[in-house]
């Protein structure tokens, strides 16, 4: 099985050097930000690796995982990290962060998929910066492929994937024929969430995404990483989404102590307006 995994780097929310909005309010200040991979994309990569190996120790690769990202040269670090974790090959689509929206990313990916012809695209359900939750869906539409979003488990069957999705009040299970788009949710990295046809049903993965072993980091330097110009994939680079203004959320007010229950109820009613 050949799997394409799109990766996006996002500003590290834990970093002390928090995201800043310049006075004009028209963009996010990106200089000095520290980056990390979008966590849902890391889950997607983990799921893709599990689908392309046999689950034994030492693991044997059985398939190919190609990772792709959009961005300037420095985003290659995100790709190298993915190669060190086990991805086989990487593609960087050269552009800058502020010249992208979900639509353009989906169109460029669709063009790339025409060339790469993966059996499945496994991707994060959304990026934690913009929280747009669109690229997977737009991409499925453009390719006219079946899609399963918010996957919590994936089981490979001949020519198809059985995907369960967590929905309100239960789990919806669906079978998608390949090629297909799957977007994943947090639970996909639980120990028994993903099974390829080669992995024994009794096998349990370590919880969470795997660590790149240090020697693999060195080996990753020798793996193939190619650069493609965005223009080669999308002639029309016009953005459909225009960001008008950015605003920091209002600072949280300090808590107060109330005298008694009556005051609590009054305040909940009149100030918090939750009653």
């Amino acid at each position, binding site marked *: 099985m050949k799997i394409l995994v799109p990766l996006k780097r996002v500003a590290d929310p834990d970093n002390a050097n928090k995201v800043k909005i310049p006075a004009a309010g028209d963009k996010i200040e990106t200089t000095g930000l520290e980056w990390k991979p979008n966590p849902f994309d890391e889950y997607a990569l983990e799921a893709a690796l599990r689908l392309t190996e046999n689950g034994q120790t030492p693991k044997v690769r059985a398939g190919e995982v190609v990772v792709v990202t959009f961005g300037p040269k420095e985003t290659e670090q995100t790709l190298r990290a993915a190669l*060190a974790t086990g991805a086989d090959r990487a593609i960087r689509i050269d552009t800058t962060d502020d010249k992208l929206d979900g639509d353009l990313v989906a169109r460029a990916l669709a063009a790339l998929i025409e060339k790469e012809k993966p059996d499945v695209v496994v991707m994060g359900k959304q990026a934690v910066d913009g929280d747009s939750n669109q690229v997977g869906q737009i991409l499925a539409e453009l390719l006219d492929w079946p899609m399963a979003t918010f996957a919590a488990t994936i089981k490979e069957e001949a020519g198809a994937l059985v995907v369960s999705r967590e929905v309100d009040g239960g789990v919806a299970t669906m079978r998608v024929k390949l090629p297909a788009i799957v977007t994943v949710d947090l639970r996909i990295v639980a120990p028994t969430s993903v099974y390829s046809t080669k992995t024994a049903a009794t096998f349990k993965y370590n919880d969470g995404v795997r*660590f790149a072993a240090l*020697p693999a980091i060195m080996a990753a330097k020798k793996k193939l990483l190619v650069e493609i110009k965005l223009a080669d994939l999308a002639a029309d680079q016009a953005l459909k989404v225009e960001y008008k203004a950015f605003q920091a959320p209002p600072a949280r007010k300090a808590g107060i102590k109330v005298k008694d229950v009556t005051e609590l109820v009054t305040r909940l009613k009149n100030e918090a307006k939750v009653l």
Partner: protein
Amino acid sequence: MADQTNPLLDDRDLDFLLYDVLHAERLVELPDFADHERETFDLLLKTTRRFAREVLYPAYKPMDESPPVLANGRVTVHPMMHAIYPKLAELGLINASRPASVGGMSLPLTISTAAMAYLMAANLSAAGYAFLTTGAAHLIEAFGDEDLKATYMRPMYDGTWTGTMALTEPQAGSSLTDVKTAATPTDRGHFLIRGSKTFISGGDHDLTENIVNLVLARIDGAPPGIKGVSLFVVPRRRPTREGLVDNDVSTAGVIHKIGWRGLPSVILSFGEASDCHGYLLGEPHKGIGYMFQMMNEARILVGVSAAATASAAYHESVAYARVRPQGRSMKQRDPAAPQIPIIEHADVRRMLLRQKAIVEGALCLSLATSRYADLAFHGATPAARSHAALLLDLLTPVAKSFPAEKGFEANALSVQIHGGYGYSSEYLPEAWMRDQKLNTIHEGTTGIQSMDLLGRKAVAGGGAAIRALLEEITEAATRARTADVPVSWIDAVTGAGAAVAAITAELGAFALGGDVEKMMLHSVDYLELFSVLVIGWQWLQQAAAAREGLARQDGLGDFYEGKLCAAQYWIFTEIPRIPALAELCRSGEDSYGRMKPAWF
């Protein structure tokens, strides 16, 4: 209650120390490190950081609470350690700094030290299984024949087996010349080992199928003293054609420890059934010499573990001080006004800044010393290598003892900042304080380090080592001047350098005049004043790098201001103590010199 958001070590600080202060990225210009680039260093550090925080740290408290148990002659370790160990081995840090010829990746020690610091800050005991194995396997790599390397070093470096250093005996602790464990030659190549070792960390556990002990012992008829001690490879189970068989190594007891409670330290008994095979490493009677050649790295690692342990506690206390409301500002007279977080009290900030100055000073020294180790072995020219070797030898006793001694003080301050809660085992600072204490004891006590520094290192080469140190300080001062660090700060450090050189010469003169006892009477005070200078030098470099950062206006202003305050703190509260300590050494103040055992 553990603060799960405790970063253990500040990533920004590690980057600052490695790249802004020490320019570690330049190490890749050396042929032996040419396979690396800063990007691989960063990826490596990222991986170990995550591993430390996500895998090791959650197990720290549970492992502290339920130490290993000895039952039916074998030690069982915490179940969480069983889950951790295979991942720890797979991570590949055990042999990362070793060359490719032995399966490693030639990672500079500077970087592997930084990576190891994360593991140690997260869970000292868990990290211990790895670094003990590295140390033991490295000895086999350096002095073993091909057979020993293939049989023992390989499976140790890949984590299949673990290793120990089995040196200490009841009558031979600080004084290893007194080891009694006996080795009797046989005509089949191996020796028969008989004796007992105590406090052997990692000496028994149920994580791997085998444990390889490096044992100091005397070959029958060996000359007495240091020149009669040899080093042996003594596996728990020895490989035979039929597979691993029992090698007559047994566990006579497990030490009940106040810290490092996830790592068993045991009493080992060798040859109770006269069937314990030992394999001589290198030549007979050279064991202590071999040990000494590996001493620098082992001692640097103790210093790193001390800095890391103090760092975890420091971050815990900063977070606590921000959220614990207590009291009001001196200006606030209204008792109804809300209480303020204790970090608003200057005295709490004193305790925090002291911890910061100790922790980040110690980390900087650990990394700087590791860098000298890299340069001593891989430097571009023979001159560069010998210069670095001189500094490595000189700084090692400080890099070992300063983080341990002052780290303990920093750990106590973290308890203090937590007030009564700090004295409760619900909170972590007391556990780190217990862990820390070992670092002033093992790998040579502080007293032993002080004698090594004053009696050997500081007077080495007729003062060549001290001159090399002064050159480094001069270089740091030049950088600081260019970066606009206040002149008074620079003068304080360079002045202290001159004062330390002077007192070293004076103490050396006592010995030349035949009074070694007077020279050595205040060796611990000398170690202290020397350490204050060395850490002052680290802070001068950090101040320079911080000023350079401020000039770049890269958005990290708060970080650099914090660095400058810590530098100022060290330079103006610690450096002034040097003359008084020097006076103690010079005067030979003899209260304890004169004190007779009977007078206690």
